[in-house]
């Protein structure tokens, strides 16, 4: 054998030598060891996971609108100022909403003049909104009516001029039109849009979708659905898979063989297809999605627990337990189960991530969840036909799925690295 002559002088640390021998990706992975990156993984991901859980528990704290509210114009891009019809009045008039223009029988002017731009859609919006308010006022028996006298002008300047000179009590212009001309009319003010809200840039942080729902709000509310599916499906799978694995591993023999064949065939079945089949049979509801995904992941727990049980069963302390006359049920409960469960808790986290992806996949395909649910998968499915014109409809739910899955996976993997000493030196 020809051994290379070793250079005695260079004193390269062992780990640097090791690093030099491996490829880039592996180098990154190995470097984690020396920089304690696993702890960072766990710290960052647990903060993320906690944040997601808080958001899922209290979406109303974070979401400006409800999941089904149609609150704005359609297809508003992220950060874009909504082009709402604004109510423009003289700053000293004391009017702030359209409702303030309502008139009673005692008023001199029964039909307040309101200036609009000829041919602009704002006129229509004003008419609709005024009719709506008028109906409400009539129902409330206050004696007030709102029947604006709509006056049309040819330019934005003329409209504003009319308000400034008192020709009209107020004007309704789209915000873009108003902003262009606002500088010339310092006496005027736009206290609200005609629906009474105060519109400003950033109201729709991530834009709006094709029916005027706030993408950001739906994202926040969707967290709840995603985590419910992820947690419940994993928990159900855990509660079924762990006992089955324990029993099969401990009992061995025929029981073990039959159950393992069954579980393996379940495991070998392509995951999403099985879930599709189950939800298609059971019909759409969140419970059925949970059942379908749980069935998918039972074998994961079963296999891990069974394997661990087989090895723990051989431990001397189990034999010792038998030698002091412990019953099989006691041995399972007090000796095997507590020694098996740590590895389960680690895969649980990774499993939640998987379940969320599968859940999103199912609802993307239009299976499982009722179509109006605020769910990321559904949002992506609904947004995909507009992907060329409204990129934000699919991007943000997609990113949300990615972040949640990343957080849970990182947590699980980081914990595995830290808690499992057998992996540590790999």
């Amino acid at each position, binding site marked *: 054998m020809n051994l290379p002559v070793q250079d005695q002088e260079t004193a390269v640390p062992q780990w640097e030598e090791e690093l030099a021998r491996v490829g880039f990706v592996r180098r990154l992975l190995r470097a984690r060891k020396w920089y304690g990156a696993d702890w960072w993984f766990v710290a960052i991901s647990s903060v993320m996971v906690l944040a997601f859980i808080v958001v899922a528990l209290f979406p109303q704290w974070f979401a400006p609108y409800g999941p089904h509210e149609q609150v704005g114009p359609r297809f508003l891009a992220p950060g874009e100022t909504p082009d709402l019809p604004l109510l423009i009045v003289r700053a000293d008039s004391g009017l702030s909403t359209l409702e303030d223009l309502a008139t009673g029988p005692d008023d001199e002017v029964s039909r307040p003049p309101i200036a609009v731009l000829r041919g602009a859609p704002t006129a229509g919006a004003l008419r609709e909104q005024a009719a709506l308010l008028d109906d409400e006022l009539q129902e409330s028996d206050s004696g007030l009516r709102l029947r604006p006298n709509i006056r049309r002008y040819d330019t934005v300047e003329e409209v504003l001029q009319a308000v400034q000179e008192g020709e009209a009590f107020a004007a309704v212009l789209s915000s873009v039109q108003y902003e262009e001309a606002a500088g010339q009319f310092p006496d005027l003010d736009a206290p609200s849009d005609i629906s009474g809200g105060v519109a400003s840039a950033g109201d729709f942080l991530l834009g709006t979708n094709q029916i005027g729902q706030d993408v950001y709000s739906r994202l926040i509310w969707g967290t709840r659905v995603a985590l419910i599916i992820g947690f419940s499906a994993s928990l159900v799978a855990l509660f079924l898979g762990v006992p089955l694995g324990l029993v099969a591993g401990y009992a061995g023999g025929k029981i073990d063989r039959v159950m393992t064949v069954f579980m393996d065939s379940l495991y070998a079945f392509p995951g999403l297809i099985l879930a599709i089949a189950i939800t298609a049979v059971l019909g759409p509801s969140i419970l059925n999605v949970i059942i379908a995904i749980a069935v998918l992941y039972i074998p994961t727990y079963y296999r891990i627990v069974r394997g661990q049980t087989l090895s723990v069963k051989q431990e001397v302390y189990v*034999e*010792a337990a038998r*030698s*002091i*006359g*412990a019953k099989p049920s006691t041995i399972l409960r007090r000796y095997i189960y507590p*020694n098996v469960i740590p590895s389960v808790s680690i895969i649980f986290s990774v499993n939640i991530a998987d379940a969320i992806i599968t859940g999103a996949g199912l609802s993307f395909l239009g299976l499982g969840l009722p179509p109006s649910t605020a769910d990321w998968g559904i949002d992506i499915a609904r947004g995909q036909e507009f992907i060329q014109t409204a990129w934000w409809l699919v991007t943000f739910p997609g990113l949300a799925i990615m972040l949640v899955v990343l957080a849970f996976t990182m947590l699980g993997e980081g914990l595995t690295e830290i808690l499992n000493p057998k992996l540590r030196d790999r």
Partner: protein
Amino acid sequence: MATSSDILYSVRNLTVEYETRHGVVKGVDNVSLDIRRGEILGLVGESGSGKSTLGKAMMRLRNGSARITSGELWFDGQNLMELSERQMRDLRGSRLGMVFQDPMTSLNPVQRIVEHLTETMLTHEPEWTEEEARARAEELVERLGIRRERVKDYPHQMSGGMRQRVMIALALALNCDLVIADEPTTSLDVIVEAKFLDLLKELRDEFNLTILLITHNIGVVAEVADRVAVMYAAKLVEIGDVNQVFEKPLHPYTEGLLKSVPNIELDSGALYKMEGSPPDLSSPPPGCRFHPRCPYMMEEVCPIYDPPFAPPEGASEDTRVACWLHHPHPQKVAIGA
């Protein structure tokens, strides 16, 4: 079969078989052994000679794929082979105790010491209260030289010696009659080992224990045992009083074992090394199983005829040996057979 009152445990023609890929292997082959009340019986032999298999079989514990295929186990007047698994469970821990080889792995890592002890007690004495069991556990642990507070510790917080004492405490928790100690000192260092052996002797007197001490360390046996049984290739080859065996071993294998122990007084240079290695039990040699390694092997007899395990000529019933050197007229027996 009737047992005389001073014999606590009697193994009769016990055979234990293992299923292996290469067929059935007899881990214990037709072994008979009496353990007397209150004695410490040392069972020595090389690794793989079947000592542990015998020890576990005596508690009817399965060791891997081992199966008791024939024989009787008489414990205090009842044949354990006739008991149901349930009755056997009641016996284990309350009357038959076991101490395992490696104290590092023989305690449940996720249970506190006190839980180990109280669980044993409450399994067999369900009418005891938790507090009674706890108090007794603390008392017991203190008797064995571990501070009372330490019962709340987990096994990994204790040293090997302490854990081994906890294992003994488990056997003592319900005053077991017989403790089978399977290489209890193998993983302990010599000082801890010596202390542990002293403790074993003390406890024997105090709790009126009977101990089967399984070990490959002949020095340990010399120190504590009253009688010695030597096992070779799944069979007993010699049994006798400890002084007699050590002074005048009858079986050549025992002789070899004793000579292989380093002795600082007899500076004989190189250590004696027994020729050959133990046989493969899936196809043991015919006749006496030790004959391929035996310096006194007799061509006409030993490779052909299996020697009986019986008292040698002119000796008392207490001593038994399986060697043609000590049985009358092996040639005649051979020819007669």
